[in-house]
């Protein structure tokens, strides 16, 4: 198959969309002839790979025009275009599709409208709330409109969970038969220069410190855990506007000495903390693009997670996390206590997690699914 991977970002840029584009091509290249078209001033070249980069140092209209023109020329000889979602790429791709009839698959790994609005502090809402609310910013509204139109014109759309498939199908008006699930490949193990030794009864969680992060509930549940496990401690990685509020909660509960707020730390330190903690708590109630549970699995520690739609979906077949009832702090405290007092349960969860990573969140599973989607479209 001749495939074009169309992306807005490519390494040396460090965003996940850039590194995914590079990684997915490495795997697709084994069985397909792959070309990459990226907006980039510089690109990391790989042997045997055809990468075309279009300068970002041009006005937007010229960038779009050049991208469309280049893509059109590439599409003449291609069987399929695999697009990493963004309007700057999606727009040229759909224009080219209208003329060339080349099938287009969009990887909806992130919602540009929400990502952009969050980054520019235009919204502090969770993804679900953002989609349901009125968006006052004109540019955000425009991106959503364009994004919806692009998605509806695509031959197929891929989302990283069944839950997100339902959400984006509903919000962007997609007919479900064209929207597929493909779980992300979770392989970014970090090699550290020193060993991470386990800290007994250390609970770790990570997130942006906003009201909807679920961290307030974790702190309150931890206060209950403290009664039975006085040696336990809670380590919170992340920063955000609700930090003071969360610190006050810890203070008011009399556990301030036991709760450590680290602020924003490096990726390596987050990995180290996952490895050195006794368990990881994931209490994000929003169903979005975050993959905290599978990242916890990668570091090999037991996971306790809120039983959201996404969490239930990803543990359904192979397990790997102890789920607690959403918004039930007592249940969360109980589940943490179970793991602290039952080594067998802890080991079982990590073994299940390993299997889940292999079967569902590995590159082999991801590429297999991608190939099946591509083949279905080209039948």
């Amino acid at each position, binding site marked *: 198959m001749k495939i074009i991977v169309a992306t807005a970002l490519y390494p*040396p*840029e*460090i965003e996940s969309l850039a590194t995914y584009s590079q990684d997915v091509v490495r795997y697709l290249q084994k069985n397909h002839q792959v070309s990459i078209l990226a907006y*980039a*001033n*510089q*690109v*990391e070249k790989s042997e045997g790979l055809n990468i075309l980069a279009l300068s*970002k*140092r*041009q*006005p*937007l209209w010229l*960038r779009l025009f050049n991208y469309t023109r280049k893509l059109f020329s590439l599409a003449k000889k291609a069987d399929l275009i695999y697009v990493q979602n963004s309007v700057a790429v999606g727009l040229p791709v759909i224009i080219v599709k209208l003329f060339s009839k080349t099938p287009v698959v969009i990887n909806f790994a992130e919602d540009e409208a929400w990502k952009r609005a969050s*980054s*520019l*502090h235009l919204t502090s809402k969770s993804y679900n709330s953002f989609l349901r609310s009125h968006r006052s910013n004109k540019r955000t509204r425009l991106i959503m409109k364009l994004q919806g139109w692009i998605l509806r014109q695509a031959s197929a759309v891929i989302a990283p969970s069944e839950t997100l498939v339902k959400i984006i199908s509903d919000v962007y008006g997609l007919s479900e038969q064209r929207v597929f699930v493909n779980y992300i490949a979770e392989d970014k193990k*970090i*090699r*550290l*220069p*020193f060993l991470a030794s386990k800290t007994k009864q250390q609970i770790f969680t990570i997130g942006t410190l906003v009201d909807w992060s679920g961290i307030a509930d974790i702190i309150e549940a931890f206060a209950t855990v403290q009664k039975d496990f006085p040696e336990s401690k809670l380590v919170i990685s992340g920063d955000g506007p609700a930090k003071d509020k969360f610190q006050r909660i810890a203070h008011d509960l009399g556990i301030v000495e036991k709760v450590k*707020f*680290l*602020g*924003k*730390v*490096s*990726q*390596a*330190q987050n990995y*180290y903390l996952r490895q050195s903690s006794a368990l990881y708590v994931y209490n994000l109630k929003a169903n979005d693009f975050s993959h905290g549970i599978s990242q916890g699995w990668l570091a090999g520690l037991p996971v306790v997670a809120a039983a959201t739609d996404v969490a239930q979906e990803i543990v359904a077949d192979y397990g790997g996390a102890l789920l607690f009832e959403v918004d039930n702090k007592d249940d969360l405290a109980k589940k943490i206590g179970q793991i602290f007092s039952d080594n067998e349960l802890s080991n079982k969860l990590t073994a299940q997690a390993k299997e889940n990573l292999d079967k569902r969140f590995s590159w082999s599973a991801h590429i297999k699914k991608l190939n099946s989607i591509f083949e279905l479209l080209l039948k």
Partner: protein
Amino acid sequence: MASDHQKLWQEYRETELRAVSPILEQLGFSLDKEQIHIGGERYVSGDKKLVLIGHRLSDKKKVIIKASSDPKMIEEIRAEYSGRQVLAKINFAYHIFFYPQEILFVESGAHTIFITEFIEQEATFTSRPLEEQFFLALKSFEAQEAVQATTYEHASIISRTFGIWDAQQYLNNFDKYSEQILTILSGQEKLKTLLATARDFLGKNSVTIDLYSDFLTHWDFVPHNLRISGNDIYLLDHSSLRFGNKYESWARFINFMTLYNPDLEQALLGYVKDNRGQQEFLSLRLMRVFRLTELIWYYANTLSRASGNLEILNKKRIDLWTNVLESVLSDKKLDEGMMANYRGLRDSLRDEEEKKRQEKLH
């Protein structure tokens, strides 16, 4: 005469202090009796700028005062001030780390004065455990790497304020440093050969330098330009920011740690090698070579201003960094014994004022 420079600096310092003190008092600030940043080896830099510690009279808040009447240094203070304003305004600045709160920027008569809050820290960077230093460093580097001058909109704002360096710019500066080093230290054949090898290394890999350019980088990223408060890292010097190769700040920091904490140096080198691939590791080595050459150039230039033990010490520093340059070019670890010998010699040659200045610096 070398000793004249020390005398001239002392005279300049006293004159400036006499001129600045009443202005500060009028603005509501007092100066502390002990001023560690204007003593010791400070005179050899030749920069006519005072970095002072003081207090705001209204609430006794401890502050850092940068003041100068020298046109070059006034430009530097202005650049630092405007750099902070731009970082706060441009869209991507939300990634950046903390910086001390600005208290006052004023141009009074011949003097430009910039006052920021003093950030207290529980412990200096190098006195912290290795793991903590490692993770703090990574956090700082990731914060810088998250800011890229890649788009058309960003590039124009950034190039005006901070400047953007590409491979050619690094090579041009290398050539300038190299030429001046060989003029000052004529007859040093080993250094001449090494600089030729370094030029060849940078020139042949200029594509790699460009590949990892366009990132925010701090070319003087060393512990004395940072302060740690709680888990937050405060950047003290904003005049050393530019957009360039992302490993420039890593290089400066790692070269510093070669002397001050070789375990951290090795941990950071290993991290890049193991997690970021050969090409990025090469980029780091390239930047280390560039920065080491600049360091040798810096010390070569101080020889005409340094006197007595400091002149001897700075000659030893040139030897030391030449050896480090050789080790980086050959991608081999420097002999620890050589570094230990240097440290011993350095401590014996430093005067008391400098020893005191160094105490809480890093």
